């Protein structure tokens, strides 16, 4: 008896030690069900989910109630003799028909919800989402706004060198901004492999597939920040491409649109030049592109832009051969400048190296190329001016 207490006490001690080791209370959310819905779609799904849950639980309890009663009452050790029956047609018909009727009962509300979800008509705003390895692009088709959204959690947190923040892996540099109480229609596609866009509280999940444009809609009840993740395995950094939606009141959203609209009205000549390729890259001001940059300025800016390259080429330029080649001492980074500019601007076919001319401004591209040639263990000594990049667009 005392031994039992002893072991119980030592168990408690182990449990206490374990708790100290993993401070559970820091994180504890212990969510057992779908998160609280913030769209009408999500709340219909939650109702449906709860209803099926209850039906399943009732069936489960009845069936296994019978089984456990039988295990208790019809035991050989209780002297129960086996009754040698093996058929009962009436019973068999009944337990085929009843489940069928239950299924019909479940199918009706499911069908109604699905019809509701698939109706993308009468939307107030359309946003095109494009999945890239491993980031999202948002294009506001009605407002001519377009930007990329990258993971903003520092590598140091991922590699356990710094404590993890509250929104670890669920934070981005530029969130998607949408108005509340407006039906927003989303068109979704991909630039490379299949991704899936998902915010649990919106109740929508849709695959981003190259060559396809899928659509879905969401109408968010109230302003706030909503988080989700890519839900389809898309390669190495699948776990590192979060989705953040910043929901503003309709008035705030209009103000945001005004602020972020392209400032300069493009001349007719520019429009023709851009042609069918509207994505000429994020704009840097003409002044910045045309002035002469010093080596120090380019290097300083390049270091911040290089953050986007770390996922594949590593913080020190070592890469992860063979799919993600090193930049330190590579043919590209210490070889002819021309090839280096070409690969950064146009990407490399059938690899994860993307055409960054659509993602980065002239200043960004010039800076990052200069940085790659004169840091990461390289010291070529040359530099690229943003104007040269502009000339090659």
């Amino acid at each position: 008896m005392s031994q039992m207490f002893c072991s119980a006490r030592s168990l408690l001690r182990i449990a206490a030690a374990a708790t100290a080791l993993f401070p559970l209370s820091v994180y504890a959310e212990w969510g057992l069900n779908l998160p609280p819905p913030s769209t009408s779609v999500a709340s219909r799904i939650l109702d449906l989910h709860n209803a099926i849950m209850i039906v399943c639980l009732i069936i489960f309890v009845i069936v296994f109630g019978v089984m456990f009663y039988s295990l208790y009452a019809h035991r050989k050790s209780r002297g129960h003799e086996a009754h040698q029956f093996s058929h009962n047609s009436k019973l068999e018909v009944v337990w085929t028909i009843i489940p069928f009727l239950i299924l019909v009962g479940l199918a009706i509300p499911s069908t109604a919800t699905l019809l509701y979800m698939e109706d993308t008509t009468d939307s107030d705003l359309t946003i095109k989402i494009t999945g890239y390895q491993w980031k999202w692009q948002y294009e506001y088709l009605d407002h001519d706004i377009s930007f990329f959204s990258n993971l903003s959690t520092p590598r140091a947190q991922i590699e356990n060198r710094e404590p993890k923040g509250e929104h670890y892996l669920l934070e981005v540099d530029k969130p998607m901004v949408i108005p509340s109480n407006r039906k927003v229609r989303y068109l979704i596609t991909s630039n490379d492999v299949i991704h899936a866009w998902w915010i649990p509280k919106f109740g929508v999940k849709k695959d981003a597939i190259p060559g396809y444009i899928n659509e879905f809609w969401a109408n968010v009840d109230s302003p706030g920040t909503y988080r989700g993740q890519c839900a389809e395995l898309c390669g190495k950094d699948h776990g590192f491409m979060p989705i953040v939606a910043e929901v503003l009141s309709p008035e705030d959203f209009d103000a945001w649109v005004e602020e972020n609209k392209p400032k300069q009205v493009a001349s007719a000549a520019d429009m023709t030049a851009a042609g069918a390729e509207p994505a000429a890259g994020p704009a840097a001001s003409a002044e910045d592109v045309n002035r002469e940059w010093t080596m120090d300025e380019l290097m300083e800016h390049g270091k911040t832009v290089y953050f986007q390259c770390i996922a594949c080429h590593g913080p020190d330029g070592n890469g992860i051969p063979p799919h993600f080649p090193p930049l330190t001492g590579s043919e590209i980074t210490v070889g002819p400048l021309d090839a280096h500019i070409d690969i950064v601007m146009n990407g490399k076919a059938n690899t994860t190296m993307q055409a960054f001319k659509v993602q980065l401004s002239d200043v960004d591209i010039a800076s990052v190329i200069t940085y790659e040639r004169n840091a990461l263990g390289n010291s070529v000594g040359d530099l690229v001016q943003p104007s040269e990049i502009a000339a090659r667009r």
Partner: protein
Amino acid sequence: MSAAHTEAHDHHDHRPSGIMRWLTTTNHKDIGTMYLIFSLTMFFVGGIMALAIRAELFQPGLQVVNPELFNSLTTLHALIMIFGAIMPGFVGFANWLIPMMIGAPDMALPRMNNWSFWILPFAFALLLGSLFTVGGGPASGWTLYAPLSVQGGAGVDMTILSIHMMGISSVLGAINIIVTIMNMRAPGMNLMKMPLFVWTWLITAFLLIAAMPVLAGAVTMLLTDRHFGTAFFDPAGGGDPVLFQHIFWFFGHPEVYILILPAFGIISQIVPTFSRKPLFGYDSMVFATAGIAFLSFIVWAHHMFTVGMPLAGELFFMYATMLIAVPTGVKVFNWVATMWRGSITLETPMLFALAVVFLFTIGGLSGLMLAIVPADFQYHDTYFVVAHFHYVLFSGSIMAMMGATYYWLPKWTGRMYSEGLGKTHFWLTTIFFNVTFFPQHFLGLAGMPRRIPDYSVQFTEFNIISSIGAFGLGLAQLLFVYIIIQAVRGKNEKATAQVWEGADGLEWTVDSPPPYHTFETPPTVK
């Protein structure tokens, strides 16, 4: 008499000894044994990978493996468990038991039987070898979705070749099983008298022949897309990435039933024995199995509700998938009715069978939830799905095979296993299985996607619990190996021919262990 009889046969056979016996054997019992040992080995290889995955997921942040290796581990864990542990395991049981259950002397095509086994070690050497290539193993998930699978290195090509070899092995095995059952039944053993294990395997074998070539086609198209300039799955060349998913799941869903129907057969053998009653509703069991097999071919797209199918397609696949609950329900009701008013004892095989019925039903009900399209939009590609398929595959297929091992091991080795250790193994497995996988339902609902090496901090607690369970589950299986070795080494109590009081069937009429050749003169079945 039995010893002299066996010796005479050995002489008659000119059976080589040592390694040559195993390389050249055409005996269904030898081949069955090799399949089972292979399956158990692969179970541990895949299990170690699972433990590496759970170790990485023990806490947020990257600690144990990098994301590329993590993706290779999830991919290989699935391929190895499905094609290396579960399928060969069931084929092992089929080889040992089908001839003995139908009163046949051996399988119909013994040399092909040998070949279908010996392809497997090479196929898996190739698959595991991919880990050591430059660029690592396949990292696109076992589903190998294009275009992601087009990106990988030589490891993907080795995987494709290895899948071809596994496919050939499975199809040959399936042909053998069909031919044996159709042609070699003892006089009087008509189809509707066959033990249910034989029935479920007959239907499984047809599924294999129909499904495996489809997978072979899909991976071949992948191979030509990768190396020979075709564009089946590349939209830039007029191809379609979703086409891959349709073809894959046209194989993949029947595959799910290939992995579970023989388990249903096993449960239908064990439950009557320990209830000391005939199986309730034999005919409806056969029809339910056939019904499930038929439905398995028209529900494939429920794996891909989020790809943006037309509304009519989503509705059709939802309704068809929900229908599967009817025949599956019939099976569960029949098992419960078999126990009803029986004379039940709870030896280890029965405990495993009960756990399978109970836990598989949890997986079946979560499967019904996944069929509901709007709800599936929330569950799809989350840990809810991971929990669901481990409830049907681990506590369905794997635990059924464990129960089957305890059930037939005395017949095969002539020795009883240690009942106390067997029950300990059962309780450890059942408890740690639930500790591992039940919390994953909550993780999925809370929004944790599957196949991620790192997660946001809100998911920490349930992941810690799940990882602790996984290590307990893994360690408990060492006990399983110890129990088997103990029985094989012949130190335990001798088993009678009947072994279990309530057992019924031809395999219980021969000695334990059975002679090297059984039923050379067919028995007559009344």
